[in-house]
């Protein structure tokens, strides 16, 4: 049934288009300024279209040692942390998905309780300190190893796998561990991917742990570097490196380039992975 396009439709689409612009504008503006040449940026003449296109700002940012170290550190934390978190969460969620697990209810209650109540910032800091994790790469990985939300998503998914499949595996002579690796995990690829992405994004953006647990600048993740350069204005290294060429790079273009370089991986992958996130959002809203 074809309906006429009414005034309602026009207004609705216009408002949504405007809304989409407010979502996109910041990125376009940042890209435009960071790609424009100095004279236009200083004259405040850039809005959404770059003028005097050049890549000097990006070249300066990418040759900055702190950015490179930050990138390297963040990648290490993301790979290490996501791997460990995914393994531990999968094993835990699989066990907790079994209806008759001994003390299963108690374990689940213990986990859910931590969503409601936590020791707070100071006791957590002192605990991590007592374990001698301060100023180690583990400080970025271990204190947030398992997220209750991700555990519950996985458990819900595992509970949805028909029992008959496991029974048939048993009849074929598979052990409990064999059922997990041969039957359950191959069926669970979508949820594994979703939870993996949630962990990766969480660790990628983790600023809190670095702020609390890291003092050694060699261990700083990218987020701390971005904050130091853009918000605290610690720019000395970059200005030196950009002065190597005779072209002048404006501070503003530099800072936007730093932000974009720090966001690029997520912006690039986002279109391909968004459907997995959405699945996770739906699963998370189902009762755990």
């Amino acid at each position, binding site marked *: 049934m074809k309906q006429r*396009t*009414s005034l*309602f*439709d026009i207004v609705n*689409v216009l408002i*949504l288009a405007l*809304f*989409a612009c407010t*979502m996109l504008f*910041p990125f376009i*503006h940042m890209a435009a300024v960071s790609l424009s040449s100095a004279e236009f940026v200083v004259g405040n003449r850039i809005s959404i279209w770059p003028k005097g296109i050049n890549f000097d700002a990006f070249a300066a940012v990418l040759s900055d040692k702190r950015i490179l170290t930050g990138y390297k550190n963040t990648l290490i934390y993301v790979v290490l942390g996501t791997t460990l978190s995914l393994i*531990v969460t999968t094993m*835990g969620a699989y*066990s*907790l998905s079994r209806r*008759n*697990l*001994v003390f299963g209810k108690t374990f689940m*209650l213990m986990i859910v309780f*931590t*969503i*409601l*109540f*936590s*020791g*707070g*910032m*100071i*006791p*957590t800091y002192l*605990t*991590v300190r007592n374990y001698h994790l301060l100023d180690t790469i583990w400080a970025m990985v*271990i204190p947030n*190893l398992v997220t209750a939300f991700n555990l519950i998503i996985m458990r819900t998914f595992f509970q949805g796998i028909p029992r008959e499949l496991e029974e048939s595996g048993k009849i074929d002579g598979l052990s*409990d561990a064999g059922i*997990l690796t041969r039957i359950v995990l191959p069926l669970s690829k979508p949820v594994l991917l979703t939870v993996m992405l949630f962990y990766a994004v969480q660790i990628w*953006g*983790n*600023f*809190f742990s670095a*702020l609390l647990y890291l003092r050694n600048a060699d261990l700083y993740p990218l987020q*701390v570097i*971005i*904050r130091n350069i*853009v*918000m605290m204005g610690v720019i000395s290294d970059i200005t030196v490196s950009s002065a190597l060429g005779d072209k002048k790079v404006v501070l503003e273009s530099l*800072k936007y380039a730093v*932000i974009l370089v*720090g*966001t690029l991986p*997520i*912006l690039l992958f986002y*279109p391909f992975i*968004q459907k997995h*996130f*959405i699945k996770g*959002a*739906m699963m998370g809203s189902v*009762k*755990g």
Partner: protein
Amino acid sequence: MKLSILGQIKRDRIFLLLLAPTMIFYIMFRYVPMFGITISFMDYNLFKGIAGSPWVGLKYYRMFFENPDARIIIKNTVLLGFYKLLFGFPAPIVLALMLNEVRSMLFKRFVQTVSYMPYFLSIVVVASMIDMFLSPSTGWLNHALQSMGFPAVNFLQEPGWFRTIFVSSEIWQQVGWGSIIYLAAVTTIDPQLYEAARMDGAGRLKQIWHVTLPGLATTVAIMFLMQVGQILEISFEKVFLLSNAATYDTSDIISTYVYRIGLLQGNFSYGAAIDLFMGVIGFALVYVSNRISRRFSETSLW
């Protein structure tokens, strides 16, 4: 046949082994800190540890409540949470309703994709963007204001602007992601209801009001209760990054205060006392809202 506890443990030994890392993590990093809160009743000394520090009872709790800072940071925390709920709660519902009325699937998908994106940006990146955009000398917002003849405003240095900046940036980041659940709920509404409404002569707005909204009522109610429960859970990172000494009158919240006074200045017992006070109120809020939610629907957090 019912197995004894020992028999069950033996039967489930593989699963208990698989679960062990998870539970060890929870005990070491979630439960140990909970007991660590006892330092709020002590004069905790980093070098003497819990065993060597003297008990002081409620000294630090009294200290907190007698401190004029307490009133300010509690007020700031509650108001920030309240404004976020007031403006941030309806936003995704409105977005979902509008998206639901879009006929072109391509356009709808485009708006959805674009609106989820900010949710995945790190808080540092969002705060950095705000910092740059609002800069009084180089930010585009002030350029725009000046070109319209208004004076430049140093937004991040003025206490009066902090709540607006915080709440709008939270909405910008979360409105799209928040709309997912409502869009899913809309698809469960029986199309015949729209048919019937049209027969009765209802226009588009009336259909939204009389069919879509009632169809969403349960989801809306549950989400509302959940968010009321989490009203005090305000992103420490974002507030910390966007606030500064000039705006503490409105921007200093309980968690940033604990970080600054408790952790940075080493007043661990005092900080832990505020942590516990916060934790208990937060717990009560989530618990009560979840009980209500469970009463009038099947859905709850646990």
